[in-house]
C-alpha cells in the first residue's frame, strides 16, 4: 500500500549530502524521502509512491540485505528496482571509476551524475526532469 504525497527517493549513506539535495528539490516543489541503506530504500519503495530513485553506489545493505556487498550495494538496488519497478526512473549519483560500469548504466537508461563534480543546481535540474518526465537541455 502506498501512502502520502509522491516523493523522490534519495538513497545515500551520507545524509548531509542528501539533505542539501532534498532541501533544494523541495524548494522546487518535489517532496523527498531519504534512505541511508538498501533496506530503508526498499521499504520506502514499498510504502510510498516514488517518482524517481536517486542512488549512490557505496552504501550498506541494512538489516534486510545484510549480505549485499556494501561497496556495490547501489548496483544491487538498481537491479532490484529494474525487476520490481521497471518503469521507475533512476539517477545514479556517485563516483564510479570504471568507465565500463558507467556505460552499462547509461545503456540501461540510467542518468549518471558524478558526485563532487556536478553542481547542485545541475543535479536538481536533471532529477526534476527525470522525476516529472520533462525534457531538459543541459549546457
Amino acid at each position: 500500500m502506498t501512502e502520502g504525497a509522491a516523493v523522490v527517493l534519495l538513497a545515500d549513506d551520507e545524509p548531509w549530502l542528501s539533505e542539501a539535495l532534498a532541501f533544494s528539490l523541495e524548494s522546487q516543489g518535489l517532496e523527498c524521502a531519504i534512505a541511508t541503506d538498501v533496506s530503508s530504500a526498499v521499504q520506502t519503495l514499498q510504502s510510498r509512491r516514488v517518482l524517481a530513485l536517486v542512488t549512490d553506489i557505496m552504501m550498506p545493505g541494512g538489516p534486510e540485505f545484510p549480505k549485499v556487498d556494501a561497496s556495490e550495494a547501489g548496483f544491487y538496488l538498481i537491479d532490484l528496482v529494474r525487476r520490481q519497478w521497471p518503469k521507475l526512473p533512476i539517477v545514479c549519483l556517485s563516483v564510479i571509476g570504471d568507465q565500463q560500469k558507467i556505460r552499462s548504466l547509461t545503456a540501461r537508461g540510467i542518468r549518471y551524475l558524478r558526485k563532487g563534480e556536478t553542481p547542485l543546481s545541475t543535479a536538481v535540474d536533471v532529477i526534476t526532469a527525470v522525476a516529472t518526465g520533462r525534457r531538459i537541455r543541459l549546457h
Partner: protein
Amino acid sequence: MAELAETQKTTNQYLQNVAHQLTAPLNAIKWGIEAIKDEKVTISRKMRLLSSIYSQGTILVHLIKNFSLMSNLEADHELGQFREQPERVDPLRLAINLANDFQPQAAERGIKIDIGELSFNHVFGTKSLLAVKNLIAQALSNLLENAVKYADLKTSIAVQATFVTLAPGAKTAVGLAVKSIGLPIAPEEVKCLLNRGVRGTAAKQRIPAGTGIGLYIANRVMEIHQGTVFIQARGRESTFSLVFPESRVK
C-alpha cells in the same frame, strides 16, 4: 613480482579510500553552501545546513589531523621521545571538551554521550595525567568518533575513567574508556583492529568507506606514553580504553 603488484593494488585501494574520505565532507559542504544560496530554501533549513557544514568541517579537520599525525608519530617512535613536551592534562576537562565536539554528530543519530564525572574523581582525585595533550586528545577523539559512527541509534556512549589490570598480577594502570552498544566485534578480530588500515567486518558492512587508521593512531599515541589501547568486546557491547601506566598520574 606478484607480491609487488598486490602491494601496489592495496596501496591504490587505500589511497582511493583516503581520497573518498576527504572529498565526501567537502562535497557535502559545497552542496550545503549551494542550497543556502537558494532563495526558496527556508531560513530554518538554512540554519540546519549551516550546522551540517560546521559538522563536516569538524570531521575534515579531525581526519586531516590523523593523516598528519601518522607521519609525525612514526618519527617520534623512532626517536623514542616526544616532539612536544608532556604536560599536566585534566582528563575530565579533556573528555568534556571532546564530547562537546562530537555532540552534533551524535545527536544526528539520537546518541547521547555521558561523561562519568564521578569515575574521573574516583580514579584521578585532584591529580592530572602527564601526557602530550594534542596526542591524547586525538587518540580519545578517534575512540569517540568510532563510537558515534558505530553505536546503535538512540543509545548512550559512556566515557569513564577506570582502573585497569591488563594481565593477572600486572601493575594497575589507569584507563580512559569509551563504552558503547552497537556493532559486534568478532573475538578473532579484536587483536587485528589496532593494525594500520584494518577495519572490522561489521564496521565495513555498516559504513563501507573508512581509512582504518583511527585505532592504529590511538595505539601509536599510547605506545609512546608507555601505554596501550585495550579492547573489550562482548556481544554488542564494546569498550575501547586508552590505558596509561599509573606513573603518569601525578
